């Protein structure tokens, strides 16, 4: 990709948009201050005959929460492991804070914190022992280490349970400890692999809010791998949808929802002709398409998001129609993901 050799940041992003259908996140101005922290180029990794990651490209900017979203086996964890320098790619390259994940593993490891999908703490040790153990790996002065452990225990609200063995922790406490361990050394980049897997709604929300806070207050850049779409929607500035090792779409969650789903209104009339009302609706500038279905049902696709049920009900009234039932459906990221899953199944069947 010769276009990438240009040193002009704007042009580089323009080129990327073309290559990768990337677009700049709305709340990120792409001035020269916004540094790419993670840069992934044509990264591939296979295991035996299976290609887990297939020539993917993306970059994550400083202070951003970037989501890698995909079904199980899409290649999320493999990508994360490569970026953490624990696994070498077959081809392509990746840098973290400017350090190459193959040649400069030490620099990469100094830059990152990793929260693993599976349990990575020792359940026979107490919470504090686990953190102390992790901190010692960085060979810090004693006071510094102890302060670090105490601070992070406080942040995740585990001070009360610092001296309890981890095997007696609840699921939520365990995840908080895992995140605390990842955050321990205040890394520049936090790699989170399914950080809320197996948690209840309340605990999940707690973890999300904590991650948001850490991202805002400490300026941590985060790469989040998740199969929970609502998680990516809630947390991420931008997401890339990974399917069978390939990035099939990458944008802000909103833009993806807009491009892959429609705001649909389904309604039934109790008074007036279905055909007449459909004709009326088609004349509206905000209507994309109007479809008449059996049993008097109308399906209306909207161009303009600001138009909702109240406007349509009002319109029906003024024209002498009366609506017996109406519902609106907004697209979710699930539709986007399932769209790709279905598409690839269809392609395989051909």
């Amino acid at each position, binding site marked *: 990709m010769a276009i*990438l050799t240009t*040193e002009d940041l704007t042009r580089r992003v323009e080129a990327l948009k073309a290559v990768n259908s990337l677009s700049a996140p709305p709340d990120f101005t792409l001035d020269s201050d916004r*540094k*790419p922290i993670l*840069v992934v*180029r044509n990264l591939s990794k296979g*295991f035996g005959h299976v290609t887990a990651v297939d020539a993917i490209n993306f*970059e994550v900017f400083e202070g951003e929460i970037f989501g890698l979203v995909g079904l199980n086996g899409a290649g999320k964890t*493999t990508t994360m*492991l490569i970026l*953490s*320098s*624990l*696994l*070498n790619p077959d081809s392509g*390259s990746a*840098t973290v*804070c*400017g*350090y*190459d994940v193959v040649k400069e593993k*030490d*620099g990469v*490891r*100094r*830059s*990152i*914190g*990793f929260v*693993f999908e*599976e*349990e*990575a*703490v*020792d359940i*026979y*040790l107490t919470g504090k*022992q686990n953190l102390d*153990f*992790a901190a*010692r*790996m*960085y*060979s810090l002065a004693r006071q510094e280490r102890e302060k670090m452990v105490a601070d992070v225990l406080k942040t995740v609200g585990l001070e009360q349970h610092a001296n309890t*063995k981890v095997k007696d922790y609840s699921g939520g406490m365990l995840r908080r400890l895992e995140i605390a*361990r990842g955050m321990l*050394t205040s*890394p*520049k980049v936090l790699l989170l692999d399914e950080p809320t897997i197996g948690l209840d709604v309340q605990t999940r929300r707690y973890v999300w809010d904590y991650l948001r806070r850490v991202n805002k207050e400490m300026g941590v850049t985060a790469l989040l791998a998740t199969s929970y779409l609502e998680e990516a929607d809630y947390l991420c500035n931008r997401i890339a949808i990974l399917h069978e090792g390939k990035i099939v779409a990458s944008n802000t969650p909103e833009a993806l929802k807009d491009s892959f789903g429609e705001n649909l209104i389904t309604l039934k009339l109790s008074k007036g002709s279905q055909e007449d009302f459909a004709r009326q609706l088609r004349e509206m500038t905000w209507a994309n398409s109007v479809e008449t279905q059996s049993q008097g049902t109308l399906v209306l696709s909207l161009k303009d998001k600001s138009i909702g049920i109240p406007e349509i009900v009002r319109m029906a009234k003024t024209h002498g129609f009366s609506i017996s039932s109406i519902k609106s459906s907004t697209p979710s990221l699930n539709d986007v993901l399932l769209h790709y899953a279905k598409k690839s199944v269809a392609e395989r069947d051909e």
Partner: protein
Amino acid sequence: MWGGWYGKMDVQEVTHRPLFEGEPIYSMWLRELIRFFAMRSRILATFASPLIWLLFLGIPLSQIFSSGASQSVPGGLSFFAFIVPGIVSMGLLFGGTNSGVTVLWDKEFGFLKEVMVAPVRRTSLMIGRSLGALTIALIQALATLGIALILGTWLGFRIISVAGFLLAIGFMIITFFAFVGFGLTLGALIENTEGFMTIVRMIEFPMFFLSGALLPISVIKGIPVLYQLQFINPLTYGVDGVRGLLTGVFLLPAWLDLTVIVAFALLFLFLGAYAFSKMEVD
């Protein structure tokens, strides 16, 4: 590449790593000990296991050897005194090999990933871990010797000298590390962890049985292959060295015991360390 545009970020002061990473090594050692003392069943097994071998195998077998005059233990040792160093060496074989291969378990269960993402040498992690396992193995060896000395007042086992005892400890340490290296190498060779322990047992037990730990190696002198196998088994030299130093009866030349076990330790520690340093998490 692009990383070069902005230069490397000063993440933390990237100083040169010390050759000896004391904190991580200590920390890995400490973790092994905390885990050991946290599990009551493991402490119990440390004392119960040598007791079972010595009581339920040592005493019955020693009856065969003391009643039948045609078969006697070389060097004039009581049979019980003969197998005590064998049981001690068994602990070193199993403890050392397990310590090496369980690196794989940690990898599987995620714990090793946690420490592997830290900027620490792989070899430091391995050294700390092995030192922890060594400490536990030595606790077990001392427990075995303690029990054997008590039973030995009736069954005829005593340690010849303090110097012999101390030298035997040194020899045990070398033997232990030889098997740590062996275990690491095995772990690296067999990538699949499923059924892995079964394969390891299939290698460990023949090594134990054909090492002169339970029966003098001369017992099977007439049987081809089996007899020769004993001489390519490194544990044979480990057992003989420990026995010689503890009881004063060497069945092989002492220099040969030392040479073989040191060579074996160096070879496999080198192979194991190399395999470990190349290990990826997948």
